[in-house]
């Protein structure tokens, strides 16, 4: 029983981090129909920012991380501007090329060996609740994840810019005709995505402190898969999809027998295929869309 609970808590924590990443991807996709592969490099950049400011006071380090991630995200917004009329395939491959480029830059600047992030090491200490031993970072991940997801949802539901974003996500043409400035809305989506990514970075570096050029890429791939499995068309389903894939990966890691653990990816992605076949437009969406185009 304790074991089950322990596994569940860890799985929820990992799921929360993936949900933050997934929501960022979903926000940008919503207003721009763009799947941003380079979202992972926001996390990589944030992690390097933390690593390079290790010696500075915590608050300065955190603020640098957020500033760097937001700046990079705004740069991506500008870079992607010519893509707004491109086909989905070109969009997808271009964001991959940007991701490839940023990883190459990181490799050139910081080398392949990796750097250590030492932010908030005290969060790695464990706290005992009854028979459970839970690390602080697990609890903080769940709390911060829940808070940020809630805050973003509130922002979308209650503010003017949130309304405009929802309108654009539903139908860009009509929203523009009604006076929504597409550029403003897209820029805002990139900033929000950056804030979520930077928060995920801080939480993640506590658990995985070694930052390499492919740090964020490795995280964004499953998150992206989760987004599509959950359902891209709505932010809630995309976020839930991200949560689900993190949760499932953590649970599978515990449930699989020791000698079968190397096949974790096979099990996880077989599940992905099965879910996609059963519900092509998303696990957490209501309708089955007919032929859609990529």
């Amino acid at each position, binding site marked *: 029983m304790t074991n089950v609970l322990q596994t569940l808590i860890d799985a929820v924590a990992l799921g929360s981090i993936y949900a933050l990443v997934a929501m960022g991807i979903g926000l940008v996709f919503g207003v721009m129909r763009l*799947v941003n592969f380079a979202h992972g490099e926001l996390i990589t950049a944030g992690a390097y920012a933390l690593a390079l400011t290790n010696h500075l006071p915590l608050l300065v380090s955190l603020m640098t991380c957020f500033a760097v991630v937001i700046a990079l995200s705004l740069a991506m917004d500008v*870079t992607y501007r*010519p*893509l707004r*009329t*491109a*086909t*989905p*395939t*070109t969009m*997808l*491959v*271009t964001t*991959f*090329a*940007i991701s*490839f*480029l*940023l*990883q*190459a*830059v990181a*490799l*050139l600047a910081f080398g392949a060996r990796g750097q250590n992030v030492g932010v908030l090491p005290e969060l790695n200490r464990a706290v005992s609740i009854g028979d459970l031993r839970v690390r602080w970072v697990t609890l903080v991940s769940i709390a911060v994840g829940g808070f940020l997801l809630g805050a973003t949802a509130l922002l979308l539901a209650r503010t003017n810019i949130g309304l405009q974003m929802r309108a654009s996500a539903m139908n860009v043409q009509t929203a523009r005709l009604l006076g929504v400035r597409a550029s403003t809305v897209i820029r805002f989506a990139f900033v929000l995505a950056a804030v979520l990514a930077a928060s995920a970075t801080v939480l993640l570096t506590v658990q995985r402190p070694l930052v390499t050029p492919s740090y964020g890429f490795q995280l964004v791939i499953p998150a*992206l*898969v989760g987004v*599509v*499995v959950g359902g*891209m068309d709505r932010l809630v389903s995309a976020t839930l999809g991200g949560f689900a894939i993190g949760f499932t990966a953590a649970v599978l890691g515990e449930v699989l027998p020791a000698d079968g653990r*190397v*096949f974790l*990816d*096979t099990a996880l*992605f*077989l599940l*992905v*295929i099965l879910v*996609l*076949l059963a519900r*092509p*437009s998303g696990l957490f969406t209501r309708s089955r869309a007919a*032929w*859609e*185009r*990529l």
Partner: protein
Amino acid sequence: MRRLAAGSQLLAPVLLLALVGVLGSFTSRSVQFQFRFALVMATIVIALYVFIGNSGVVSFGHVSFVAVGAFAAGLTTVPEALKLSLSPDLFPLIAGAEVGNAVSLLLAAAVGGVFALIVGAPLMRLSGLSAGIATFAVLVITNNVLRNWEAIGPGARTLSLVPESTGFLQATVGAIAVAALAFAYQRSRFGRVLRASSDDAAAAQGAGINIYRQRLLAFALSGALAGFAGGLLVHLLGSITTQQVYLDLAFVTLAMLVIGGVRSLWGAVVGALLVSGVNSLLLTAESGLGLGFAELTVPTGTRLVTLGVVMALILLFRPRGITGGREVTLRWPG
């Protein structure tokens, strides 16, 4: 006369591939490898084009067919004793199999095609991003299984001592043969029907086209061609690991296709050769590139950055690809 003009659209890609093959064989030994590698990359990209270009559906999964083709061709041309010392748990059937170069290439094509058919049967019901992610899942699973199941291959170790039979003749003829097959398919009834269905799915279905069946056919054909290309690759490199036929290759080949222009065979060939060419040039420049009057040396490590910048710029400013997705028709003057 019109048929002749249409057939001549195959001429440009074939001539370009042949040119690369002939030019390359006159260069120095180290550069020769780059030329042959470019031809094999072009073969992979053409295979990718057969499905993506005609169906309009993105597939990240084709490199898994390249992978199984490469390991099939590699494992059947390495001596049995060597295979068993590398991987003692190998199935006797695989350990005992030993065939010649040509048979191994055909085997690679067969394995790739059958695998694509099995995988495609459920997956081709999907479209859009769901299809993209599902094929990506196939890539991850294929890699995970190849890397960890030592009864079917060397696992995480390197499969080495594969005969290096992909010389200029094999690379050039292989690439041209695949281009010709791709062209024949695209001009055939099946290719036209699939293209029509990607232009307007609803209208195609209204005209009685079974999109699922057409996509599956294209998927299996391009899987077979990708498997064949994998065979060429392993016979070029002489050794292979599962990581060489995984994410990096999948994304680079997809980028090559889009950079050239997804909708045409000409685009596939141009994109693959151009990106390979830029990459080789930068590779050479890192060790000093003699320009006759001056020597250009690029600092080590900047190759990937430059390559990334070039790819991103082309994609951003020529979103339909360099060729705009059109074929070229060569005409006699006058």
